[in-house]
């Protein structure tokens, strides 16, 4: 192995020790949902925000809450409602009648892990305020700009079945989420285990096993994870195939209105590195890219009306792309 990659490999082994402890702690509360927990860790390590979509009762909120409990960080849950105002999120200036001045009241966004519950229930101006903070990692209240503490991770949830009274996120804003997860029902065994655990009146305590500094150190190592030119070309082929499917022999041109943005390329690379880190590897394989590909791309491909009429979703398209592009 190359000397540099050998060093990275050793660093990965050293810095990824906490992963096992963290997943064990989360596993005390959450039954199954390994996919969800692993993707939350990918977002945490790759410094990317996550949008979680799933029907109610799939432990979306509980998973996020448990993750934040296992990390010594400040956690805030914000329930998005139609009457929420941007100031409720980022804070405001409060007039002090005693001295005639204004004092800054920071909002709940000043935390390390934010759970934006049911993000599509708040109006566009509130969504914009959150998404701006996600992108810039800073908040301006009055004339003062405040940097948000690191790590800063937004985990937003939305319910796909209740569309009444919702404000769907615009495509440009959805693009800012590194991953969009689609949470599904647990299997039979998991369902049985949930029943056993949650019906005996016992509460499970989660120990704080890692600090924010551990996460920041791990993020540094994630950035150092080696990604070979062959894998980079594989990523570019996938992204380009969503834009020019004809050139890759895919009959998808009429189904795709807009292909994946350059953010997709960046996030496939970063999320692939984080995935390799979680596997204790100092290098990325095509498997890492393919594994996280669906979560990175499903919200970045806009389908045509024709596709909608034929009930072809962006997920069908991403699957076809991955099933077609040759692995190096």
């Amino acid at each position, binding site marked *: *192995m*190359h000397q540099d*990659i050998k060093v990275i*490999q050793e660093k990965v082994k050293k810095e990824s020790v906490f992963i096992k402890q963290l997943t064990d702690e989360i596993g005390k509360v959450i039954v199954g949902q390994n996919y969800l927990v692993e993707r939350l860790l990918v977002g945490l390590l790759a410094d990317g925000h996550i949008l979680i979509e799933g029907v109610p009762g799939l432990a979306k909120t509980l998973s996020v809450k448990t993750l934040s409990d296992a990390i010594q960080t400040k956690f805030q849950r914000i329930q998005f409602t139609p009457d929420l105002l941007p100031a409720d999120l980022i804070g405001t200036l409060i007039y002090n009648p005693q001295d005639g001045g204004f004092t800054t009241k920071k909002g709940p966004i000043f935390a390390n892990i934010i759970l934006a519950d049911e993000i599509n229930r708040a109006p566009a101006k509130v969504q914009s305020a959150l998404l701006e903070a996600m992108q810039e990692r800073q908040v301006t209240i009055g004339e003062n700009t405040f940097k948000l503490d690191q790590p800063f991770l937004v985990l937003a949830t939305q319910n796909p079945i209740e569309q009444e009274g919702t404000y769907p996120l615009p495509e440009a804003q959805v693009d800012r989420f590194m991953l969009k997860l689609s949470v599904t029902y647990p299997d039979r065994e998991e369902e049985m285990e949930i029943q056993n655990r949650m019906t005996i009146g016992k509460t499970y305590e989660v120990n704080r096993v890692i600090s924010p500094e551990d996460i920041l150190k791990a993020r540094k190592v994630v950035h150092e994870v*080696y990604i*070979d030119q*062959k*894998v980079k070309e594989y990523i570019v082929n996938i992204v380009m195939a969503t834009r020019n499917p004809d050139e890759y022999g895919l009959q998808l041109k009429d189904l795709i209105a807009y292909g994946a943005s350059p953010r997709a390329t960046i996030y496939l690379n970063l999320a692939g590195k984080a995935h390799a880190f979680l596997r204790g*590897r*100092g*290098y*990325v*394989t*095509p*498997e890492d890219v*393919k*594994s996280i590909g669906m979560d990175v791309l499903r919200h970045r491909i806009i389908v045509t009306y024709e596709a909608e009429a034929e009930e072809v979703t962006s997920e069908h398209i991403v699957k076809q792309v*991955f*099933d*077609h*592009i*040759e*692995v*190096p």
Partner: protein
Amino acid sequence: MTKKASGFIIISQMAEGLKRTLLLQVWVIFLLLAASGRVDSEDEETFQEAKIELSASLEREQFPQNETTTLTVTLKWVGSQDAFEIEPLSPPSVDNLRIISSSSSVETKLDEGTQVTLRKYEFALRGESQGVATIGGVQVNYRHTETGQSSFLETQPIQLEITPATSQKRLKFGLLQLILTIAIVVGIIVFLIYRFAVSKRESVAVSAAEVPPPTLEERLLKELSEIESGLGNHPSEEFYGGVRSITLDFLRGKLELAGRSSTTADVVAEFEQKKLPQGVSESLKKVLETCDQVRFGFKESSQEEKKEILSLLREVLEPEG
């Protein structure tokens, strides 16, 4: 009282000597004016003498019967195009000739500061039969625009000789014969080569039918032996690239697994679905994972490890028994 009258009174009151001097001056002026009048009359004479030069020329005076020659009739005069009105030119009378086409052109140019106009008429002529041919005189009627004076000019008749037609057709025919001959010879050669190739292919097919084609395993084992023979020479990445390619060819050809878009993890998952024998799936898994470690993570691989991988793959590829 008019000015003339007052002038006369003044003159009558002058001294006699002064009178004579004045009268002399008047005469000089009168003579000068008269001289000036003469110059004008000379100009008129020049206009009257304005003329057109007419010439006729032949491209060649002797030409073959099957070719053409050109008769050019040129009118040249000093002045602008509008100085003369030229009546439409009648084609010349020709004997033993045929006028094929005609054209005309006008050109005005400056020749040493003088404006000169050239009007040309061209007649393409073809000989009727071998011998002497004649072109009659060409008459040009014109009118001077300014004076309105009309006149005409005529060229002298021209004689020319028409020689026998050239043997171009015969040459063309000879060339055609040559091309046809070459084409026939080339065709025969191509046919012979084709026959030879077909007979050879048939003989190869016959011999191939006698020898059965190598099986997939045999072909892959041969490729594996080639990789093995160059074990020390190839870089690890190249070695494992070859090993991976052989492994995937085997999986695709024999077990219908491992599509081109499958990762190692996908292939390993397929082993489980297909329920391959435990030993085979473990060997293939190890081979593919080692290939990935070297190809994507630059894992160092010793000669012993390479030999072990080759051995694992050979066991899978070698037919039972």
